[in-house]
């Protein structure tokens, strides 16, 4: 059984045992706790929420902020791609002694100070930008402003307006003073001091020529050049302060492990509180309901019995229509391919786990699509090496192993089609000719020169997988007790398609069995016409929709033809490898370092081919499972079995 058998469990216990029982269940990690929703109303059960989760969420956020702070300001980069989990004993984990608050406060204070420094640097920068514009004005900036009788302005005027401005200014009177400086580009900078009675006329000039006087962002002392020097100085000291704070922040890196443990602790606690909300209680008892794998049930009962006696455990089989959690259990080799089923969606409890059936096909398809001995060898070595040496999480390891097995399949298929880095081995020096002899002796089909057998091979596998799909559909319905549907909708088509295939084969290969097959074929057609219209009420419609159902054959035909991609992708890998060899040898013909260039060109091409063809092999092999195979029998819609457990991200309990 690939989908583990589940039991619905109701655990009723005395309220005093509640905390112990919860701790025990969390420890055992075998039960998914769900809320019992079929409670008779007269029982007066209440949900068992006692502590609020708000505080815990606050704590989780604070610890997360500390970790983010450490992550941001760490000076030693962590080694490796994957985190190695921190090992903690259960006792230390469930009773944390570490107080994170001082660290949190320090982190927040450093963050705030850094933010303050950054704000100040921004302000200084914007002042500098302004001052650099007027750097050439040799005027003490404290003089800009107004006195009792005069106003003074900083002006930036385009060269075209400058002459006009001076003319207009001369026209309004003589009580002003203008100091001119060269500005940036085609503009003129000016310092204007003017008697206040002339202000109205000046405003008019400003408005007419659309000049707006520059206003200082704040009061400065000294000439722009002096102020710039002063500000640069300040910027430098701010940068130093920032550096000091960052170094100080990096100190907290030494608490990283403890914070991570605490993070996991609070998350586990949160999980526990959430679970407690699903527990019902009366004055004296609690009701914990959920799902347990059948095989784990005796262990659970034993563990409970060890503690106390004030409990009762009811168990029953899942009822039809119940949302039973799914736990997939397969052969270790098949488990590497679990991820593909998960990607599509887990099966529901009443159907067949497609993984064991799909795994072999995926393995095989990937091999055909990549289909090269050396590429396969490279992927297999890299994959198995990575899965063995890298401290990656289990799901990642399985994925890598799945690809590595695909590499193995590709190696085998490469032997079969004689693709060893394309046709490279044809061009080996005569001293290595034995390798090429080996290649040709192992080659069964040569798709480059004679593609048809390989194409037929691909389509043949397609027919086999589709027939298996229909058969699985039959099995699924039969097991559910829908015998009519199983026979009429699945088995009949299985027989029909099989006979067509046998009939076609008999035409080319064994004409003698043709007279036997033909009546079966006709019988199957008549059977389908008679039965496929059974949902219609009108007898004419029954026959018509029976006839029409034969049209489904077209969709099966389309599905089978879709498998031709296996051949196309396989041969495209080989051809691109041939191209790599051809281009390499073209460049290799050049004098001096030609051989080196040729080698590099060929190598780059091969790597590119490996990447793209590998991606294609994966994607299209998956697609054939999802679109052509799964549609024949698979419903999905199950949700994963999530036992109540320690929710950990960084640590490993021991």
């Amino acid at each position, binding site marked *: 059984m690939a989908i583990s058998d589940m039991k619905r469990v109701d655990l009723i216990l005395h309220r005093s045992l509640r905390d112990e029982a919860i701790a025990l269940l969390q420890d055992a990690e075998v039960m998914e706790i769900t809320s019992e929703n079929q409670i008779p109303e007269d029982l007066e059960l209440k949900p068992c929420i006692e502590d609020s989760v708000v505080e815990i969420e606050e704590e989780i956020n604070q610890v997360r902020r500390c970790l983010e702070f450490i992550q941001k300001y760490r000076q030693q980069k962590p080694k490796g791609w994957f985190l190695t989990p921190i090992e903690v004993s259960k006792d230390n984990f469930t009773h944390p002694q570490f107080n994170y608050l001082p660290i949190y406060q320090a982190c927040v204070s450093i963050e705030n100070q850094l933010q303050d420094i950054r704000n100040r640097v921004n302000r200084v920068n914007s002042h500098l930008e302004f001052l650099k514009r007027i750097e050439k004005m040799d005027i003490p900036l404290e003089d800009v402003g107004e006195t009792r009788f005069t106003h003074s302005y900083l002006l930036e005027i385009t060269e075209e307006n400058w002459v006009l401005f001076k003319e207009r200014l001369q026209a309004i009177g003589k009580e002003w003073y203008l100091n001119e400086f060269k500005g940036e580009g085609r503009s003129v900078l000016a310092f204007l001091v003017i008697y206040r009675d002339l202000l109205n006329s000046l405003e008019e000039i400003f408005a007419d020529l659309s000049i707006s006087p520059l206003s200082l962002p704040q009061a400065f002392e000294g000439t722009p050049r002096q102020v710039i020097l002063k500000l640069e100085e300040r910027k430098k000291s701010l940068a130093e302060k920032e550096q000091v704070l960052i170094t100080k922040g990096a100190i907290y890196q030494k608490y990283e492990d403890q914070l991570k443990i605490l993070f996991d602790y609070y998350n586990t606690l949160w999980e526990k509180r959430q679970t407690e909300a699903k527990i019902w209680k009366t004055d004296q008892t609690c009701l914990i309901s959920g799902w347990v794998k059948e095989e784990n049930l005796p262990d659970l009962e034993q563990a409970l019995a060890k503690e106390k006696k004030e409990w009762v455990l009811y168990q029953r089989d899942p009822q039809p229509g119940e949302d039973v959690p799914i736990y997939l259990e397969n052969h270790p080799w098949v488990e590497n391919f679990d*991820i593909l089923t998960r*990607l*599509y969606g887990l099966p529901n409890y009443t159907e067949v786990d497609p993984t064991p059936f799909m795994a072999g096909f995926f393995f095989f398809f990937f091999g055909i699509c990549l289909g090269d001995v050396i590429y396969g060898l490279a992927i297999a070595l890299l994959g198995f090496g990575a899965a063995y040496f890298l401290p990656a999480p289990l799901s990642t390891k399985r994925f890598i192993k799945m690809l590595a097995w695909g590499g193995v399949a590709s190696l085998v298929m490469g032997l079969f089609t004689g693709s060893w880095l394309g046709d490279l081995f044809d061009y080996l020096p005569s001293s290595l000719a034995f390798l090429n002899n080996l290649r040709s002796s192992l080659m069964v089909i040569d798709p480059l020169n004679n*593609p048809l057998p390989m*194409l037929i091979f691909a389509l043949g596998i397609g027919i086999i997988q589709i027939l298996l799909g229909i058969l699985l559909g039959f099995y699924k319905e039969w097991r559910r007790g829908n015998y009519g549907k199983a026979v009429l909708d699945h088995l009949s088509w299985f027989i029909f398609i099989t006979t067509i295939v046998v009939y076609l084969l008999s035409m080319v290969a064994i004409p003698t069995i043709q007279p036997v097959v033909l009546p079966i074929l006709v019988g199957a057609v008549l059977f389908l016409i008679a039965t496929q219209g059974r949902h219609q009420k009108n007898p004419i419609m029954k026959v018509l929709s029976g006839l029409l159902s034969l049209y489904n054959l077209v969709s099966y035909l389309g599905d089978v033809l*879709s498998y*031709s*991609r296996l*051949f*196309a*992708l396989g*041969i*495209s890998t080989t*051809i*691109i490898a*041939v*191209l790599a060899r*051809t*281009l390499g*040898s*073209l460049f290799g*013909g050049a004098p001096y370092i030609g051989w080196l260039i040729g080698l590099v060109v060929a190598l780059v091409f091969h790597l590119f081919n490996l990447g*793209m063809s590998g*991606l*294609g092999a994966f*994607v*299209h092999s*998956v*697609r054939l499972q*999802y*679109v052509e195979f799964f549609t024949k029998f698979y419903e999905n819609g199950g949700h994963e079995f999530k036992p109540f457990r320690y929710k950990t991200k960084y640590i490993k309990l021991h």
Partner: protein
Amino acid sequence: MVDGLVFSLLGSALAVGLAGIGSAVGVGIAGETGAGVMTEDPNKFGQVILLQALPGTQGIYGLLAGFWVLIKLGLLGGTPVEVNVAQGMQIMVSCLPIAIVGLLSGIYQGKTSAACLGLIARRPGETGRAIILPAIVETYAVLALLATILLLNSIQV
């Protein structure tokens, strides 16, 4: 025969050129969306580059078909084969499936990839499924490549 060679080379050029345009447009469309996704979350680079690369296969199929013609004609480091006009036109026509389908499917696959990039922007857990949708579009490019290879293979030169 020079005339036959011209048709053959035209076929080869069409396969490489049109399928290449299809992929370039497709990859371009996906890349624009990908850049948008990455402004939100630069850590998605891995997923984005994967989805952007998917419409790139048409160009490779076209290149493959184009080079296959050159190899068939012995123009890549072999002895050139003589092709008459009829053979040349046959070769050219054989290149058309991957040229035309590559052009159009590359563009549509790019659009699908872009939409799937939007999907992983909001639901990073769905990358696995998001890769499958553009692959369904690619089916037709694979089938066209298959047709081109089978057609080319059936021509005797």
